[in-house]
């Protein structure tokens, strides 16, 4: 067969092929050479990125008359089982193209960053093999033209996630976190697979073209009653698919794994837990949106069951995670909760039908969150140097012993924002880029990408609220609150990290001899001897900071393609995104009318949050041994609750306490002794003990029951059931004979 591989129909095969190829090469051939593995991995991802760009351009300019009206792709038969044939295929429609703009670029940035970050790690080759496989899987997922292939990519990513979280498997906490992540997401995956299977049962196909682009099929699904729980087949399938997203995108109640997943190397956090894998969950629901919303007329307030679930779960998660993020001191965990929160935004947006906004935010978020993670990586890296230096020169008492396994309130010293401070001078580039990423996350008006997409979501929710839909009202309220908190915790994180004076010896010596500074860079450019001692470290710094700059650029400018046309001044940009993405859906989502009120509200929220953060942490930076002002304001009870990830839900007034008794006792004893709080707080603390006890039970039953209990139950069932396998052939034979007899008897009855 004569195939022009550079045809837009076939090119996608190559895109996903190269990273997988480099995985194969690394695993099979170059595992012994770190340099070679790096070269292979970089080549793979570079080629994938270049090809993606070519494909993207081809798609965008395929027909200049109407943007994004054409769908490219090709399929091949994969395997035939009985009468049904499973096909493998690629599909590039505007949504995919938009993802292709983001995914390979993010991957590339993270690969480059990893070159620096993982330098010196003895298992470098393994790492690059894994992330190559991961990139290949993500591209498979994005380019798949059917649910099965998507699911394969999905699962391979799950595997990679497991492998990469537990990459430093010598740490007990790391592999425990890996297992936890794997098992928790498995719950969602199984339900999703059930949904896929049910969908196949009903439609005999899993191809997106056949399902999503065919009104008749959707119609049929809506009209088929489902096998369970009543409702339509479409609703049940949709709910099951959403379950998959809840697991993958770490939504409540399956969110617990993501914060712990921060045990993995930072590039992994950036790639898997910010830019791609968790986004894949959202991507899947975005992709399947026609199915999820099938039968519903959400423009007129008629939401389908999956949408309602998405609205409630997403909204709740967005707020809940934002609250938790406020109380975290681990820089990566702040970002992890922030990620959960932002993903909740997208899911909630889909719940109210803000399809374009969700996709828009998905990509923007990937850019700025990857940026933030990578910045935090640089910070941690330099803090580690500082810790080492401090330990060597005896500035600090011996560093804490690492806990054995996962402990909720343990914060690794290099990650602790309270131990930082004043890093701006040490890491100027990082500080600036992180500020950009943070502003984007907070939704700083007009100049950041985050603002435009978040604003769009809020606008859509607002629009729904004005029409009088309760779901929209709920989403609006929680998202608005969450936006405020987001701005606040972002500001808190940034100021604590970079502002003021170093609060520990480690921070004072952070990055000593490692980070590139402007002066050094400048010296390098002028071929003067640099101050840094090790040229390899210079390279490391470059490799880690160049991606930051690229992503910072995107964190600002990626938003301008989606500005509402009625927005003053910037509206002239024409909002090409909406028109482009609309091509994906049969029924074009309408552009809602521009309204000043939500824009002002979101501006106010973002600025308000940032302002509070600035007041608390910026004006008078936190000094050594000073209590965190937020802690002061909230009172130690709530603060501890937050830090220990008490699951606080302001709306339902519920707290969930994890290591309840232990922590509660600590609160009582220590806080009374400290005498910083008056007697009122004693009773508050008492109350918390009681609450803690009460919600410990809730925690044990509901959260653990869902998060840990299901895997454990499966495990228990397995160990019970495996008793059947005694290894004694004669028992097996006995059973076989019994079966033979029964079959024979049945046969006899049938014949006789």
């Amino acid at each position: 067969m004569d195939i022009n591989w550079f045809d837009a129909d076939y090119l996608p095969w190559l895109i996903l092929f190269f990273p997988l190829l480099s995985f194969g090469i690394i695993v099979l051939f170059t595992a012994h050479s770190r340099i070679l593995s790096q070269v292979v991995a970089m080549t793979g991802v570079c080629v994938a990125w270049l090809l993606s760009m070519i494909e993207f351009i081809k798609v965008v300019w395929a027909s200049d008359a109407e943007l994004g009206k054409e769908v490219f792709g090709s399929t091949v038969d994969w395997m035939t089982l009985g009468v049904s044939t499973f096909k493998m295929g690629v599909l590039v429609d505007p949504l995919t193209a938009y993802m292709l703009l983001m995914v390979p670029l993010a991957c590339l940035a993270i690969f480059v960053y990893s070159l620096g970050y993982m330098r010196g790690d003895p298992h470098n080759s393994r790492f690059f093999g894994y992330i190559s496989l991961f990139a290949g899987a993500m591209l498979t997922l994005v380019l798949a033209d059917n649910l099965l292939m998507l699911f394969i990519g999905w699962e391979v990513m799950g595997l990679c996630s497991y492998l990469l979280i537990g990459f430093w498997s010598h740490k007990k906490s790391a592999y425990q976190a890996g297992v936890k992540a794997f098992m928790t997401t498995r719950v969602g995956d199984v339900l999703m697979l059930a949904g896929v299977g049910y969908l196949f049962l009903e439609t005999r196909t899993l191809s997106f073209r056949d399902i999503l682009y065919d009104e008749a099929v959707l119609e049929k699904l809506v009209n088929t009653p489902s096998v369970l729980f009543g409702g339509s087949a479409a609703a049940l399938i949709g709910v099951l698919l959403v379950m998959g997203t809840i697991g993958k995108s770490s939504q409540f109640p399956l969110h617990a794994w993501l914060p712990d997943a921060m045990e993995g190397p930072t590039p992994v956090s950036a790639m898997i837990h910010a830019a791609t894998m968790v986004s894949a969950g959202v991507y899947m629901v975005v992709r399947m949106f026609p199915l999820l919303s099938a039968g519903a007329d959400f423009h007129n307030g008629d939401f389908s069951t999956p949408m309602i679930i998405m609205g409630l779960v997403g909204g709740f998660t967005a707020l809940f995670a934002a609250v938790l993020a406020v109380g975290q001191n681990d820089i990566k965990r702040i970002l992890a909760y922030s990620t959960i929160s932002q993903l909740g935004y997208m899911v909630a947006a889909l719940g109210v039908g803000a399809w374009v906004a969700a996709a828009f935010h998905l990509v923007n978020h990937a850019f700025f969150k990857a940026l933030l993670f990578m910045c935090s990586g640089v910070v941690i890296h330099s803090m580690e140097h500082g810790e080492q230096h401090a330990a060597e020169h005896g500035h600090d008492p011996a560093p804490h012993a690492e806990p054995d396994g996962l402990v909720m309130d343990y914060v690794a010293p290099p990650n602790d924002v309270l131990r930082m401070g004043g890093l701006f001078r040490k890491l100027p580039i990082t500080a600036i880029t992180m500020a950009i990423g943070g502003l984007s996350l907070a939704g700083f008006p007009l100049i950041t990408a985050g603002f435009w997409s978040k604003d769009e979501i809020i606008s859509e929710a607002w629009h729904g609220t004005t029409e009088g839909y309760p779901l929209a009202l709920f989403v609006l309220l929680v998202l608005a609150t969450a936006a405020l908190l987001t701005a606040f915790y972002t500001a808190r994180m940034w100021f604590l990290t970079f502002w003021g004076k170093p609060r520990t010896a480690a921070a004072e010596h952070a990055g000593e001899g490692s980070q590139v500074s402007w002066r050094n860079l400048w010296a390098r450019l002028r071929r003067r001897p640099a101050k840094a001692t090790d040229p390899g470290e210079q390279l490391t710094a470059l490799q880690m900071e160049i991606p930051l700059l690229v992503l910072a650029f995107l964190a600002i400018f990626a938003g301008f393609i989606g500005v509402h046309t009625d927005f003053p001044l910037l509206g002239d940009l024409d909002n090409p995104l909406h028109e482009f993405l609309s091509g994906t859906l049969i029924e074009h989502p309408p552009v809602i009318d521009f309204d000043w009120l939500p824009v002002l509200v979101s501006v106010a929220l973002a600025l308000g949050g940032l302002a509070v953060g600035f007041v608390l942490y910026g004006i008078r930076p936190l000094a050594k041994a000073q209590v965190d002002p937020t802690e002061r304001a909230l009172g130690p009870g709530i603060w501890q609750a937050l830090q220990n990830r008490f699951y606080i839900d302001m709306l339902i007034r519920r707290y969930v306490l994890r290591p309840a008794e232990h922590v509660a006792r600590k609160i009582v004893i220590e806080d009374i002794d400290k005498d910083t709080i008056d007697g009122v707080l004693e009773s508050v603390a008492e109350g918390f003990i009681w609450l803690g006890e009460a919600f410990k039970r809730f925690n044990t039953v509901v959260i653990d029951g869902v998060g840990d209990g299901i895997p454990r139950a499966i495990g228990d069932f397995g160990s019970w059931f495996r008793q059947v396998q005694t290894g004694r052939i004669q028992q097996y034979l006995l059973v076989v004979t019994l079966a033979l007899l029964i079959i024979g008897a049945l046969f006899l009855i049938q014949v006789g």
Partner: protein
Amino acid sequence: MVPLWMYLVVAAGLFCIGLFGVLTRRNAIAILMSIELMLNAVNINLVAFWRYQTPDKIGGQVFAAFVFVVAAAEAVVGLALILAIYRRRRTVIAEDVDMLKW
């Protein structure tokens, strides 16, 4: 001649005795012997049906001959396995050889 069903009953009896042996004997070699009994029961059936139903076609005998081959191969490999296991574990009791459990 004796009616066909009598041969079949003998074969059935042989088969069931063999089955009982396979299910209950603890020594692996005894199990193997019981299997031989079952194979022979099959052979009786093959030959009997050949004789009474299609004596002009040779198929029944041919298949019986193939059963011989299978039996020989089975015995050889089975005994070799038993010997190999015996060397390693010093036992020929089938239920002691339960390495495959869980």
